[in-house]
């Protein structure tokens, strides 16, 4: 995932961009020619199959289409992670023509007031219009719902809105603290009970409609019994150096273990991808499990949750996922794996 633009036209309460943390140094995006040099090198060195362009807001840059065409010319799939507010008829046409394979648009609620409050902008109607226009132009679109204390109760009705919009893929990202979302994160975090209710409603919706719901950030089986939700795909940390590993690249070309992590493994313009993924920090990041989780039978799959949010919240990726630490009194440790039907190969 390449953070193509450091600029954004929204002020999301939950934004995880590391440069939005208090006292973090600002990041400056590279000019298009240097972006192409960077991504060409990454593609050649990593054999990656897909690149997601995010931000900030990637459509804040007027050279997006040029970069998308370049990536597609290298035979790599491109998804656009966008807040949807700048997706006009013209930009949608240009993106589709240049080869964008998937638009991932943030839709935080079916309630205008809730969505607008969480993103700090009056954008709900523009997002709805953008999604419909992508569908009208036969583009692929999925939506991303960040599950927060303030909007998780609207997840079911937001899925209903997705059905009406003709969207068939919805990703649920349980809030993970970082960036500007670090300030008062305890108030933003949903409770396990509220998440359970949302997952139960989603499970019914998937069975009823042509809908795919995927949990894109870790939901911990010690706090939510994932085996209850047969139709939802649960994903856990994909950092590392395996075939399906996901890395974050910041606007300046610095490689990070994931998009949420502030840790820089090195700069891809100066160093080889293969050398950077051999970094000792990455090995420890992937292998470390919080002390509390070490004898849990589910840990091989859930990996103790999000290491990056532990790092930014408590200063160490060896700490517990903030979702667990906040609600630890409700956690249960199963005697046996609670969802043996899911193996890492099915993630």
């Amino acid at each position: 995932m390449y953070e193509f633009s450091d600029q954004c036209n929204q002020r999301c309460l939950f934004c995880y961009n590391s440069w939005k943390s208090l006292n973090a140094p600002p990041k400056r995006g590279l000019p298009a020619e240097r972006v192409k040099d960077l991504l060409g090198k990454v593609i050649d060195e990593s054999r990656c199959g897909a690149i997601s362009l995010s931000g900030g807001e990637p459509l804040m840059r007027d050279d997006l289409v040029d970069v998308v065409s370049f990536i597609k010319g290298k035979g790599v799939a491109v998804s656009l992670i966008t807040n949807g507010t700048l997706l006009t008829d013209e930009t949608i046409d240009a993106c589709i023509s240049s080869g964008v394979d998937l638009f991932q648009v943030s839709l935080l609620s079916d309630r205008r007031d809730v969505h607008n409050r969480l993103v700090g902008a009056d954008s709900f109607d523009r997002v709805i219009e953008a999604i419909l226009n992508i569908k009208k132009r036969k583009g692929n679109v999925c939506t991303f719902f960040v599950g927060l204390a303030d909007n998780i109760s609207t997840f079911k009705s937001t899925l209903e809105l997705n059905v009406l919009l003709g969207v068939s893929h919805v990703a649920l990202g349980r809030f993970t603290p970082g960036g500007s979302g670090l300030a008062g994160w305890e108030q933003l975090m949903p409770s396990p009970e509220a998440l359970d209710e949302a997952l139960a409603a989603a499970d019914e919706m998937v069975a009823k409609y042509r809908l795919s719901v995927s949990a894109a950030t870790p939901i911990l089986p010690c706090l939510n019994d994932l085996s209850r939700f047969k139709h939802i795909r649960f994903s856990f940390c994909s950092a590392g150096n395996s075939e399906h590993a996901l890395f974050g690249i910041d606007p300046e070309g610095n490689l990070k273990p994931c998009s949420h992590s502030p840790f820089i493994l090195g700069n891809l313009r100066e160093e080889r991808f293969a050398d950077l993924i051999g970094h000792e920090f990455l090995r420890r990041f992937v292998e470390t499990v919080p002390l509390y989780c070490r004898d849990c039978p589910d840990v091989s799959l859930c990996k103790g949750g999000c290491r990056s949010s532990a790092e930014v919240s408590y200063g160490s990726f060896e700490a517990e996922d903030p979702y667990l630490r906040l609600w630890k009194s409700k956690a249960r440790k199963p005697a046996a794996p609670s969802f043996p039907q899911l193996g890492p190969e099915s993630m």
Partner: protein
Amino acid sequence: MSKEKIMEALENDELKKKLLEELEVEELEERVATRPWLCYMPIK
């Protein structure tokens, strides 16, 4: 479905229910949920 119709449904539960019922499918020919996801993107 038009934006106006969708916006109207967001303000009117009965209308939303009716529209959703019309869209309901009895048999899922393809369970897209079986497609694996890599965090932010489905794996092709």
